[in-house]
């Protein structure tokens, strides 16, 4: 199984959550909301491109919208490969995190 970087993983998840609306701006907003850090455009575009090259995402140009000056948006969608990687990650995380409550970690401090 190929490891994905954290940002890549987060982006995949964001794309999955956003369904049709998975284009640059909402993805960025979602990431900012979750991680509380600033994500520059490059930090979002780069992983998106990489994931597309790896075949985990595919993209298409949507119809022009009235809102954004009539320009098309590039919308991303999970490929079956992408879904597989998400499943792998979730399985792995669950196994490794199995039985570790958050309370236990906090008591260690």
């Amino acid at each position, binding site marked *: 199984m190929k490891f994905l970087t954290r940002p890549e993983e987060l982006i995949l998840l964001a794309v999955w959550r956003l369904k049709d609306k998975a*284009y640059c*701006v909402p993805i960025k907003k979602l990431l900012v909301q979750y991680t509380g850090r600033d994500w520059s455009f490059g930090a979002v575009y780069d992983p998106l491109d990489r994931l597309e090259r790896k075949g985990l995402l595919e993209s298409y140009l949507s119809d022009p919208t009235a809102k954004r000056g009539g320009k*098309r*948006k590039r919308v991303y969608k999970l490929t079956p490969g992408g879904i597989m990687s998400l499943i792998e990650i979730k399985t792995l995380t669950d196994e490794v995190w199995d039985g570790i409550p958050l309370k236990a970690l906090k008591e260690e401090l």
Partner: protein
Amino acid sequence: MKRRKEAPPALAAWILSKITRGEDRLSIRSDFSEIYEELAAEEGTLKAKRWYWIQVLRSIPMFLLNHFFWSAEMIKNYLKVAFRNIKRNKIFSFINISGLAIGMACCLLLMLFISYELSFDKYHENAKNIYRAAIKHSQSLMGTQMLNVTPGILAPFLREECPEVKTATKIKSWGGMIQYGDKQFDDDRFFFADSEFFEVFTFPLIKGNKKTALKDPYSVLLTQDAAKKYFGDENPLGKVLFVDNKHEYTIKGVIQNVPRNSHFTFDILASMVTLESLKGQKHLSGWNNYKTYLMLQKGADADELLKKMQQIIDRTEMKDKFILQPLTDIHLYGNYVFELEPNGDIRYIYLLSATTFLLMLIACFNFINLSTSRSVYRAKEVGMRKVIGATRAQLIKQLLGESLVISIIAFLISLTLVKLLLPWFRGYMDRELKFMFFTDIQLLLALIALVLIVGLIAGSYPAFFLSRFRPITVFTGILRPGSKRTNLFRNSLVVVQLVITITLITCTYVILGQLRYIHKKDLGFKKTHIITAYIRDPNLQNSVEPFLTELRSHPQIVDITLSNQLPYLIMNANPDTRWEGMEAGTEQQVFEIHVDNNFIDFYDLNVIQGRKFSREFRKDAEEACILNQTAARMTGWDDPLNKRYNEGKVIGVIKDFHFAPLNVKVAPLCLRLNRDPGEWLSIKITSHDIPKSLAVIKHIGEKYSLEYPFVYSFLDERIDRLYRAQQKLGQSLTYFSAILIFVACLGLIGLASYTAEQKTREIGIRKVLGASAGSILSLLWKKYIRWLILASFIAWPLAYYMMQKWLQNNFVYRTKIGIITFIFSAAAAFAITLISVGFQTIKSATANPVDSLRYE
């Protein structure tokens, strides 16, 4: 609330669109705009704009990096391919590069020469405002002449009465024997100059004060080299030089050496006031003995000044006019009579530039032709690149880049060539040329421009031609041998090359013929086996008889004569000639030479009327004049004998002979008997055992000329030296033709090789079908013959016209351009083509068809 459409800052948006790749450009822009609008709505336009700009600016470095990285990769690839191509076609690359290198080397040498010639006299501080005064004399038989002489009073007049003139100076050249201790030389360039000399010209003094150095009489300044010659490392200040064994001059200063790029140089300057005591005040107001230079005030009116100067002439009866010539024009445009030193000529520069340009043109034509003919072999590469996605613009860039690479390689080679040839060139041109490409900014820029222009121009046609290939045509193997249009263009290039070559051959032939004609032409007097010497020693001049007697006692000496000039160059003229029956108001300048009784026999001059000078007629010494035919015609007399002429009368007429260079018509000449003994000694020697005769002359000459060196030379060598400039021209032209023909040959060889390769299959098939080697040969040759004939018909009238003009303009006595000339040039061109192309064609014609058709 109605929301206004917020637009992101236009400039930043534009930058953004330039940075992003085509596909995603719009979507990325829209992403940016969306956030911008939200930000603008939430936190205000200013914050939004700031955010936008920051985002755009942060994206730029990455973009630049990427762009340059990939561009560098592409350039690496282009270079790799370019070098591979060069290596793969070694012969063609060699021909291309050497042709260009030779052309460039000539261009470079020319550039050095031209910039040197243009720099003459420019080192003076006030060079822009310095002019020389000269006289325009329209009264002579030889048309209007510019004389580089002015009256002695001109300089003081200019200083005192002309406010337009800031200052003026005059100089007078003088010869003499200079001596210090045991060192004596008589070949120094010695001038008298007034104190204002250093105000006009910038000649820094190493020792002494330039304001006072020339104030007192018998003061003298030396140049560094002159000082070294006489004084070694001692300080010359205050020491005394002997001049002409008569006068003592005190050294008041040492001047920095005069730069070689000056229209005149000097070794010794003496104070002008010395002349007052030497020759009396009258001498200073002598006419036409001085050279005057002046410095104009800024904004002065030259015409006004000329009018004022004209007053001086108007006070006399002469009809001459003064003219002013800028100092910086003298070297190239001034070829006045009585120049201090021989000047260059602007026409020479034009000629050199034109020929170099032609050479470069031929080299470029070669390049174009060879590159396009090789294009067949690059078709696959071009096709592949297009398939992968190269645009035509990229291909053109690549191909232009390749020709630039070749241009640069040729340039580097030409630099080495120039470095090697420079010493020889320096001597040949007789100029101090330095390799100043890297020190002179102008030259450096010209150099870069040359490389770029050659590379781009020569490369543009092949680049455009090759980039036009369509992948389909390339890969389905339908290779047309070339459309009508391309063939026409390339063939016309070859024809133009041939035209240039044939024209050049013809012109060289004519010019060399003219030079030979001048060399061989009978000048009208005997010039072989004659030694001439100038008697310097004034004592010897006055009592020359013992010297002559001793000379005559030797059997090697056949005859001797004395005159005040030599017959091949008579320059003394009498502007005020009067003869019986002369129209009032006319002025005529007649040349005069003073000779002894023996002169006419010695030089085999032909007396056609009357008699020669003779001792039997005692009055001859005072009043006898002998005129040449032109002079006799000038007078308009029917019978010139016994007519009054100046203060004497005419006793005879001799046949015209050439006493000036052959580019002037024979002028009127008058011979008179020597009053003072002549200084020029002419000695006729026997034709065998010349070294012995020379030894005798040397021995006796040195015996009688104790204090002065006795220098002698052959008369015919002297005459040849007169024509040195033309000989140089002939030589230069021959070298040039040789180089040009060589480069043109290179081109023909290349073309022949290409054609041979192209036609291998065709020839193989023909041979199989029964063609003989001979018929193949004629097939190949037909093309070249056709080109030769066409080129000849264009070149012949062109060459004829040019050469007629040149001969008419420069020579009064000239050769005729005959049929032989044209036959010769055609034959030469034919031979050249034969040599270049012959080998290839014979090889193709005799090739075994088995080899060429093996792979069908």
